[in-house]
């Protein structure tokens, strides 16, 4: 694997390039001394996501200041939470003084998906010391989780790579912190980019990650059920209930599908 290779080429050929290189070893444990190459690989994998992080960060920061956040409170919110969805909701519901219980409840509803995400990552973290696990989990936003899991799927037999996870995390976390702060400081320089389709970046990332997890049409049936139920519940109920409802329907389908195997 060439880490010194030209950046754009690496970006355009995607992460599958990495699996064909020397990274694919038959011995499962990540050897000592591979932290920094793995860290760089993580940073490179996360770079395309900045297309979405930059405009959304600016948008969130400028909206937060309009809603009464001070310039210091903006990076405090985005740095301590690091969960974009709940931060947009919090800014939308913000008042002075803030309704703390309401904000906590909405944050829990929106971020309850992290419980499931953490559960799927748990088996891969077993070999790490506890303090490390609790540190890593602080940064487990949707994108960090999804890229890490897709990477584990891509390299069967390989262990969870702390360096890779760290590289993605540092890149995305700093970007989110800096651009939400800048959005608050200078206002949103880009205007509302969602009008032009930039909001499609997030589903695009998720669809791409689903492709990485693809293991045949039969296994994809629970995904379809999950999507269908989530869309239905999204129409019928207010709030973020569609995430647990859709996932639950998907899990029940998975139970039925796997039983037949």
């Amino acid at each position, binding site marked *: 694997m060439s880490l010194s290779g030209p950046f754009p080429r690496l970006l355009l050929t995607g992460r599958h390039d990495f699996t064909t290189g020397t990274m694919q070893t038959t011995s499962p444990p990540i050897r000592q001394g591979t932290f920094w190459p793995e860290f760089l690989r993580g940073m490179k994998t996360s770079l395309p996501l900045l297309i979405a992080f930059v405009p959304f960060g600016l948008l969130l920061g400028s909206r937060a200041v309009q809603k009464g956040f001070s310039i210091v409170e903006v990076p*405090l919110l985005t740095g301590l939470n690091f969960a974009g969805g709940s931060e947009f909701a919090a800014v939308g519901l913000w008042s002075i003084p*803030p309704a703390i219980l309401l904000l906590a409840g909405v944050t*829990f509803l929106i971020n309850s998906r992290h419980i499931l995400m953490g559960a799927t990552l748990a088996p891969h973290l077993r070999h790490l010391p506890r303090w490390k696990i609790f540190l890593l989990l602080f940064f487990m936003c949707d994108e960090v989780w*999804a890229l890490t899991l897709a990477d584990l799927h891509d390299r069967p037999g390989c262990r969870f790579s702390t360096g890779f996870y760290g590289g993605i995390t540092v890149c995305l976390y700093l970007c989110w912190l800096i651009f939400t702060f800048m959005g608050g400081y200078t206002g949103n320089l880009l205007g509302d980019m969602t009008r032009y389709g930039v909001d499609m970046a997030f589903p*695009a990332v998720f669809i791409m990650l689903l492709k990485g997890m693809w293991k045949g049409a039969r296994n994809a049936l629970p995904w379809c059920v999950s999507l269908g139920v989530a869309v239905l519940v999204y129409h019928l109920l207010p709030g973020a209930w569609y995430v647990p409802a859709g996932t639950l329907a998907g899990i029940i389908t998975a139970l039925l599908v796997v039983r037949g195997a």
Partner: protein
Amino acid sequence: MILHLPALLAIIVMALVTYLTRISGYLLLAGRCLSPRMQAIMDIVPGCVLVAVIAPDFATGRPADILGLFATILAATRFSLLPTMLCGIITTGLLRAVLG
């Protein structure tokens, strides 16, 4: 005063709630061994969470968004992440300009 106590309190409470959701999944499963069947199911669950999270994008009711999503899915079958994102963004932007 650049920091306000109620605001600071609200931010910290939200941060604690978020962190709790992040570690509880791990805490629930830590130290447990999964059967092969459970492992097969746990392989499918992440995808279920993913599609559920992006469900609102499928439910906007705007034809431009639905068509844009299908263009993105089509692009995803052929390209890697960056070209797929660009395809999705450009197609959706054009469709919204044309279809409203």
